[in-house]
């Protein structure tokens, strides 16, 4: 056979069909789920959770699977950077898992109809809400319905380096109790080298970790200490220009300049992650951090002598902290909501929460702070460094989600206002006003959309009733 006859169309066609068939077959393989390694009986449910740096897996599903034969929970860990978008696409594609454990804003999902309301289940089975820290329920609800149950908490607290306090002649057991004391201590704790370059900062307003060079998390607890509300009671009007907000930012911006301005910028920009973090590396003496910071300190600076307390309070203010819950919910399109609820019920009992906490402590995962009050105060959990302070701070909590419908815009704009104010580009009032305008614009667009969606659902219901 010569090459010309080999290329005749009649010869090409079967080859083409075979090639396409083979490709499609290979493509289909992608959709075939690999068999799970674990043998199981009963209905299989997937639980999606966020994997942390230690890649630990939640243990409650294992205990649940052992406790009965009807339902089998398969654990699927997803990296923090991907979980949100993967969950979003799974909901749109109607292939969402039956259980979703996540953190941050619940309303971001519930307002868009991605989560199932749990009130009926809770009422039917007499779920006792008082088992969980009260302040956490606000974030779980949307338009009067509960869409998730809190399982854990991340709350903020004030950390100080006791060795630095001793060096500076301060009492290592007495953290600053007021804003004025914070400034006074911060000045005393500064160390400079012979060239006058700052090698240690007492406190760097806004510094926490290098999420990126300028993506500073914002410290809402300062204005909250002065009574700031950030948004009207009906959630329709953003208010960042209240006296409390302006006063807190004026204080932060002024403090930033008084403590060194450019020196602080240079130091802050030189810090990295882990043992290069400012506080861990001993280059910052006081810092606002999450409760999970105790885990990092244990890992990267086990010798560091530090204390944890509530934040210093301004004159006439009250204590405050910000917290974000870890929660578990059932996606609206879940195939097995009843079975999923059975697991949630099991998982949120005092017994299992306490067991989970003990398991975490035994495995050196001290970052875990259970939302369940009994578990949080169990002897094992109380052995976590500074646990009483974190529990105390839950009385003064401000949720990190302030404007659920424009959550990301709120954070971005507030952080921008913070940068503008501390770097002296705008007055704190003007910076906050600009942020307020932008967040309000985003919020109004979302309110319109929510209204459109409500009407859309009403229409769908009416049409379904007509057909029925």
């Amino acid at each position, binding site marked *: 056979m010569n090459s010309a006859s080999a290329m005749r169309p009649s010869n090409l066609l079967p080859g083409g069909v075979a090639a396409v068939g083979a490709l499609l077959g290979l*493509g289909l393989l992608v959709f075939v789920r690999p068999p799970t390694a674990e043998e199981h009986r009963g209905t299989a449910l997937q639980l999606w959770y966020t994997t942390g740096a230690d890649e630990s897996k939640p243990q409650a599903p294992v205990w649940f699977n052992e406790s009965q034969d009807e339902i089998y929970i398969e654990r699927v860990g997803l990296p923090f950077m991907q979980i949100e978008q993967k969950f979003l696409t799974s909901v749109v594609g109607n292939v969402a898992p039956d259980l979703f454990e996540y953190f941050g804003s619940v309303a971001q999902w519930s307002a868009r109809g991605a989560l199932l309301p749990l009130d009926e289940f809770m009422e039917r089975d007499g779920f006792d809400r008082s088992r969980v820290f009260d302040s956490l329920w606000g974030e779980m609800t949307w338009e009067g319905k509960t869409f998730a149950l809190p399982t854990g908490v991340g709350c903020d607290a004030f950390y100080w380096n006791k060795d630095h306090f001793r060096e500076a002649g301060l009492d290592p057991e007495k953290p600053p109790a007021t804003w004025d004391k914070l400034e006074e201590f911060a000045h005393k704790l500064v160390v400079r080298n012979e060239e006058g370059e700052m090698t240690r900062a007492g406190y760097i307003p806004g510094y926490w970790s290098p*999420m*990126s060079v300028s993506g500073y998390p914002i410290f809402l607890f300062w204005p909250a200490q002065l009574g700031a509300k950030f948004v009207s009671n009906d959630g329709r009007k953003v208010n960042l220009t209240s006296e409390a907000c302006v006063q807190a930012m004026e204080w932060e911006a002024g403090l930033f300049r008084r403590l060194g301005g450019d020196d602080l910028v240079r130091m802050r920009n030189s810090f990295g992650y882990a043992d290069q973090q400012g506080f861990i590396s001993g280059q910052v003496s006081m810092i606002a951090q999450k409760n999970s910071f105790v885990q990092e300190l244990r890992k990267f600076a086990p010798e560091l002598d530090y204390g944890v307390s509530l934040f210093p309070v301004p004159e006439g203010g009250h204590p405050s902290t910000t917290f974000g819950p870890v929660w578990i919910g059932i996606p609206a399109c879940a195939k097995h909501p009843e079975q999923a609820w059975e697991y949630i019920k099991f998982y949120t009992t005092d017994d299992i929460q306490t067991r989970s906490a003990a398991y975490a402590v035994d495995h050196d995962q001290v970052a875990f702070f259970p939302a369940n009050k009994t578990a949080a105060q169990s002897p094992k959990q109380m052995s976590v460094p500074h646990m009483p302070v974190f529990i105390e701070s839950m009385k003064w909590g401000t949720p990190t989600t302030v404007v659920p419908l424009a959550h990301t815009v709120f954070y971005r704009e507030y952080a921008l206002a913070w940068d503008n104010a501390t770097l002296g*580009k705008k007055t704190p009032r003007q910076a906050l006003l600009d942020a307020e305008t932008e967040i309000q614009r985003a919020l109004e667009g979302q309110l319109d*959309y929510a209204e459109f*969606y409500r009407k859309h659902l009403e229409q769908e219901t009416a049409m379904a009733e007509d057909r029925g």
Partner: protein
Amino acid sequence: MKLGKFLQRQAYDKEALAGYLFASPWIIGFVVFSLVPIALSFYYSFCRYDVLRPPMWVGLENYKTLFFDSPTFYHSIYNTLFFTVFRVPLVVVGSLLLAMLVTRERPGVRVVRTLYYLPSIVSGVALSVIWMWMYNPKYGLVNQLLASMGVPTPNLPEWLGSPKWSKTAIVLMGLWSIGGGRMIVFIAGLSSVPRHLYETAAIDGAGWWAQFRHVTLPQISSVLFLLTIVEIIGSFQVFTEAFIMTRGGPLNSTLFYNLDLYNKAFLDYEMGLASAMAWLLFAATLLITLFLFKVVGGRIYYEAAKPQ
């Protein structure tokens, strides 16, 4: 005769069918994953849409918001233009100079070419992380170098931490990539310049600059033009560096157009607004490319088009 034609036609159809069948995986993939989404994004640009809820028609509101109400829109355009204006010449001229150094066959030149090519293998994310350390104001190599040259500590730039220096820092990162694919294309272009032209020019007394100006440059003008256009389009889409290193800060000084678009699409779930931005970027890229073809295209020397 008719039968012959019919059979010919049949064979032709069969061949065409086979061709389409072979191409079908790509065609299906292109239609499903590119063409339909592109068309839908145009529709969504007139809607409010967050993926989870059905799109709500808002007419031209997204475009109006961008042009009249968005504080970041013009800012991100300015940042992107700044980046393009400085990055394109830096990278194109840098690659050309490097290619000129390593085009002529000399002992060991292939090793040198490989060495210059190596940095471009590093992925954008890894590269950004490396440069974050290079730009560290206290411990970074760049400032250490400047300090060793006698720049006093308070005058050392903050690089990524300073609104004044952050864009420049990202532009300068382009130096890293001048040895990559662009250098290879220039080497190919330079190698194809006929030797006799240089010889003739040399006999006429042309020095290296005259040779470069009147022989090399016209001869490689098509390569230069192609790379400039590709680089401009690439610069309009700058994203990774800012996403990894600065998230657009400080003070939005590195908020490039695509990063702003990403924030709106995947943080705020404002897909309608993001789609409108994407279509505006497409229109701008198309217009600028057409403009360049119109203004510069006529002066470009294409060997195949103009036989000697």
